[in-house]
């Protein structure tokens, strides 16, 4: 049966970062996942920390670190791990903008609301700059695209309350742009449009239409233009440069409902980084069982046609996600369980999962459910002592104590814990193969 020094389970941001880092450290790594994950659903941006009342992600991390929260032990790794990731993304043609000290600012969403962000793909960055009162914001999208309604978005963004006290454009207007063969389609999603932008001839024609319509709408005023996040998939860099060069206003992408094009770009780049460093990425392989002998994971057994498949391994990163990702499962009798290793889950009693007001600003107790770990990301047993699983590390949304919807910290926890899990397994005194071959940290770091 095949062997990998480390097996990573889960293809979300935490698993991808862990696998990339392990592969770069020179160990063999196989990432397995039952399907695509959060990358395809998210905005493509990196929400590191944005709880109410903080000005920057760094402040947010510092604040959350004072609570019973994964940042209470992960905080020192946030800056180096984010810096490492942004450097890798840029080197692979997907530059991002923003740092941990970039002020959290309100940017428009695809339903005409706003959300606070600081680190975003470069194509979303123009939305971060503070608005001048004389600026116009043009929301421009293709006619017939049901995931992006410029008139409705502009109408909502024209209301001051939506900006929650933040600076906002003096005027917002929405326009639809007729593109050949788009408006009359009964089936049109972000992918169709992104692939149109990948095609040089098609995108030249489409961008010309956008430019003409935006020129007319702006009528000489300074400002910016928000477009749906569909400007190219495999040819994003070229498509974005061309759009930017040819529009009369500076553009920014607004992320959409799934499938998320910015997220898919992120997935492609991270997968490529792992593969280029010799790692394997196997999607569509559900884990059936994890073999444990004498307190160590020895193999991961996967569903396959006719018979399960085993990968022998020296260590495991469990990055299977929270309840939405399937890493935690709510049973019919009201328990929250971790299905693969049966790890102890910190979760409130069934009656206390939810509070009465669905939109209570304090959130619901169930959101914080997860696996408690020590600082080395080793899972803890019910008694608070490390579970007898020396070579397992937990990363990402599976970690207990985060309320990522409210704290806007999911991506930061994923990156920092994926990074730490990788570093832990590379230096863990109980480990074998990686120890024998000291990690060659790349000199370009």
């Amino acid at each position, binding site marked *: *049966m*095949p062997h990998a020094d480390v097996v990573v389970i889960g293809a979300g941001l935490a698993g991808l970062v862990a696998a990339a880092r392990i592969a770069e450290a020179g160990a063999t790594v196989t990432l397995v996942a*039952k*399907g*695509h*994950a959060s990358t*395809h*659903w998210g905005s493509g941006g990196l929400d590191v920390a944005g709880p109410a009342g903080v000005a920057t992600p760094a402040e947010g991390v510092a604040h959350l670190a004072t609570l019973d929260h994964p940042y209470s032990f992960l905080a020192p790794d946030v800056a180096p791990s984010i810096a490492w990731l942004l450097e890798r993304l840029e080197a692979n043609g997907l530059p991002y903008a923003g740092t941990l000290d970039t002020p959290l600012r309100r940017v428009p969403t695809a339903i005409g609301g706003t959300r606070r962000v600081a680190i975003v793909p470069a194509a979303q960055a123009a939305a971060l700059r503070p608005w001048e009162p004389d600026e116009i914001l043009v929301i421009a999208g293709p006619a017939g695209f049901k995931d992006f309604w410029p008139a409705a978005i502009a109408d909502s963004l024209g209301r001051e309350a939506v900006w929650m006290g933040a600076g906002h454009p003096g005027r917002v207007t929405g326009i639809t742009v007729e593109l050949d063969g788009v408006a009359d*389609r009964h*089936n049109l*999603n972000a*992918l169709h449009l992104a*692939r149109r932008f990948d095609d040089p001839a098609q995108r030249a024609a489409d961008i010309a239409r956008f430019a003409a319509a935006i020129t007319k709408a702006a009528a000489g005023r300074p400002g910016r233009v928000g477009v749906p996040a569909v400007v190219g998939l495999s040819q994003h860099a070229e498509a974005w440069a061309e759009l930017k060069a040819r529009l009369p206003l500076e553009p920014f992408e607004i992320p959409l409902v*799934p*499938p998320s094009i910015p997220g*898919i770009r992120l997935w492609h780049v991270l997968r490529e980084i792992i*593969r280029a460093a010799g790692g*394997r990425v*196997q*999607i*569509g*392989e*559900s884990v059936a069982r994890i073999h444990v002998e004498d307190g160590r994971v020895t193999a991961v057994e*996967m*569903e*396959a*046609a*006719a*018979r399960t*498949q085993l990968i022998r391994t020296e260590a495991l990163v469990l990055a299977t996600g929270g309840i939405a*990702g*399937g890493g935690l499962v709510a049973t019919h009798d009201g328990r929250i369980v971790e299905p693969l290793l049966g790890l102890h889950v910190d979760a409130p009693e069934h009656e206390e999962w939810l509070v009465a007001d669905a939109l209570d600003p304090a959130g619901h107790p169930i959101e914080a459910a997860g696996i408690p770990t020590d600082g080395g990301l080793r899972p803890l047993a019910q008694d608070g002592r490390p579970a007898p699983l020396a070579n397992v590390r937990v990363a990402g949304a599976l970690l207990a104590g985060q309320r990522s919807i409210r704290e806007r910290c999911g991506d930061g926890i994923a990156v920092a814990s994926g990074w730490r899990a990788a570093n832990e397994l590379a230096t863990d005194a109980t480990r074998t193969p990686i120890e024998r071959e000291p990690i060659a940290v790349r000199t370009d770091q």
Partner: protein
Amino acid sequence: MTIADLVREASEDRHVSASADECLKCNVCNTVCPVMRVTDLFPGPKYSGPQGQRFRLAGLQQIQGPHSVNPKSPDHSVDYCSGCGWCTTVCPAGVKIAEMNNQARGRLREGTIPKLRDWGLGQTDLVGSLGVLFSPFANFAFHNRVIRATFEMVLGVHRNAPFPKFSKRTFQSTWKRRQARRPDGGTLKSRPGPDKAVVYFHGCSVNYYEPQVAEAAIWVLKRNGFETIIPEQVCCGLPLISNGLYDDARERACKNNTILAEYARAGYRIVGTSTSCTHTLKAEYEEMLDMRDDDTKAVSHATWDICEFLLDLHEEGRLDTNFGRLDEDLPYHAPCQLRSHGIGLPALDLFALVPGLRAKDMDHDCCGIAGTYGMKKEKYPIAMKVGEPLFRKVKDSGATMAACDSETCRWQIETATGVRTRHPVEILAQAYRAADKAKGTVAKGSAGAS
């Protein structure tokens, strides 16, 4: 049909039909669909699969009224699904989308007379037998432009669709003759035990078109200490399943199971060189044809793709790894059916054992052919567009040889690129021969066997 009936049906049919219930409508399947990538004729796996399934299930309930629905499917667009299976692979919720679409295609054709073309493409064994019987004429006809144009008009098989040459005789008959010449007459008495022999499932491609793949497999197996047993067998039935001819497929499946189960129970492993045949034996008899009997289970558990089998030998330390040097760039395409096996990319692991061989995963979703899909007149342009980036990569590699585990993919790649495309086991046989040559002991058929 009552709710209780539906629930019962759902639990019996859990894997496919009822899995629609798990769909979150997240669109991840649409992001990987190779067909949707190139044409609007297919609205995508989500629409045809779990979304269409609601209407199909409603149809089962005989819901009538102002919005009465077609019990078979909302429309015919599901016919444009190529069945590559990528959607099922990436679905984070475990929905069996490709299988659902396949069943929907089958249901669309229920009670209708199949198109002669689809019926013919499904009957790989019949076409193959006739082709071999009249091989000089058939090879002339299948490679004559005028005749192919006529085929296209009359039958709807695209004139440029890849078609291999028929052999002069079937592999089965060649093998039988060879066995009859053996001193023991090839009788079962001389049959070695399951640790010294495997059952070989050759499939139609080897039987009618590519006997060299079988010869390579038998030679490589022998070199590793395994005799080959080749019992009577018929088409695995996959082309019939793909063309919605489930009853015919079930008939083939029963024949194969009856013969193969006996060996499986005796502990023999069933090894195949066609990754789509082996996947059919492993999974599709149960999943697509609803066969859940003991024979089906025994055959499923005993079946191995040849590269999976050889890699397993290697893991046990039993593979002869004395490969000779092959200084070659080797572009490799992992076929869709291999991905459905869930066994990783064993061919690449084996290639890594061959000194000098620079095998490279082309990392492309699908070559387009998808069994018989790309041979059909209306689907040929789609198939070519799906495979185009792969063809470009193979051509750009400058290699003189490529590798792929699945026969129709090999024909598609070779026809589209002009680069000779071979089964991984042929490459391994070549590497063993290179070793023998280097040692100066040019091997005959018995080389290396214990």
